[in-house]
């Protein structure tokens, strides 16, 4: 099963990026074989609707769980529709958060913000 975390660098020790839609990279961690890959976030360059495109990118990579500090209502619509679960991250690296998830220490992220609407117009 795949978990995604928005990260600042392509490193398991990287901090979690405060933005969901415009994070530079996503860590995709496969729980079955404990492998990691890093995706470039193509949504970050979007004029607008970055959260939407980012959510779509993760869905297309078969992500089922996301660990993030926040996300907007647009991304939420996409993720909810696809039954993806989003947890709030803890302070620490991406690696720390994977461990916390595996030890069932993470809370569901209920805090969805109203969106930034910073799109191309």
């Amino acid at each position, binding site marked *: 099963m795949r978990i995604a975390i928005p990260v600042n660098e392509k490193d398991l020790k990287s901090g979690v990026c405060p933005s969901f839609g*415009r994070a530079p990279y996503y860590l995709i961690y496969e729980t079955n074989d404990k492998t990691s890959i890093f995706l470039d976030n193509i949504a970050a360059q979007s*004029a*607008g609707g970055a959260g939407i495109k980012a959510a779509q990118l993760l869905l297309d990579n078969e992500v089922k769980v996301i660990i993030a500090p926040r996300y907007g209502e647009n991304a939420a619509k996409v993720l909810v529709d696809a039954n993806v679960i989003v947890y709030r991250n803890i302070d620490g690296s991406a690696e720390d958060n994977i461990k916390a998830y595996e030890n069932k220490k993470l809370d569901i992220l209920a805090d969805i*913000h*109203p*969106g*930034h*609407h*910073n*799109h*191309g*117009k």
Partner: protein
Amino acid sequence: MKQLLIISGKGGTGKTTIAGAFIKLLQAKAYADCDVDAPNLHLISNHTVTEERKDYFGLPKAHIDINLCIECGLCEESCRFDAIHHGQRYYIDSYACEGCGVCKYVCPTGAISLREQRAGELMLYRNNAVFSTAQLEMGNGTSGMLVSEVKKQMKESAADDVGVAIIDGSPGIGCPVIASLSGVDLALIVAEPSISGINDMQRIIETARQFGTKLAVCVNKYDTNLKNTQTIEEFCKDSEIIFVGKIPYDKKAVTAINDGKSIVDIDCPAGIAVKKVFDNTIKIIGKL
């Protein structure tokens, strides 16, 4: 890093003048001008370093290769933005073009492509403080995206120990303002005590509320209409918005600005009043 945004709804209420004063009082290590349409903060920020410039590309715009064009007119028919015209040949009005790609899709000969177009410029001044600003090429859209770039540039270049960053916003309630509101900790609305000013203040409050931003209000040039100033204070009380103070109309302020100084650099009533507004505002941020 906490972010304080200064906006107004109505134009000309004194955002940039007040932002300049706040930057001086705070000795701000990071600040930005998000009025990318008509930036003015650089005129009083007195930077001696040369700025770093970077081209800004908005959305790619359509381009017709006249060698492939058979003048069928399908593109002009399908364009919803009135961006395609024909005289001696078919051509794109790149100011009207929104880069949607419909013309490219309908063109039977592949004569239309979408090309990157320079829509403005980002500037960054760096010495012991970082100042991020930009200028949108006139007539352009995508001001929201450029605003986001200005903020991103400021955040990325700011030192780790920046406490509060000051952001000078733009008038209006549309896209660039909405983009500036994103992620700020507090928005200070500079209101003017006129009928227009009150009306516009209410609309910007309504807009900011939709995005859940914490708000504070101050009145500039308050002594030009004491009755309206009182109306604003009462409105804030009824709406549970923090009123952080009022600044008198001050001719010396204009002189200071025209000399490239902030109002706290000279001895004047506006400067004294803005210091109180500043103290009240910083107190709110401190509690966040």
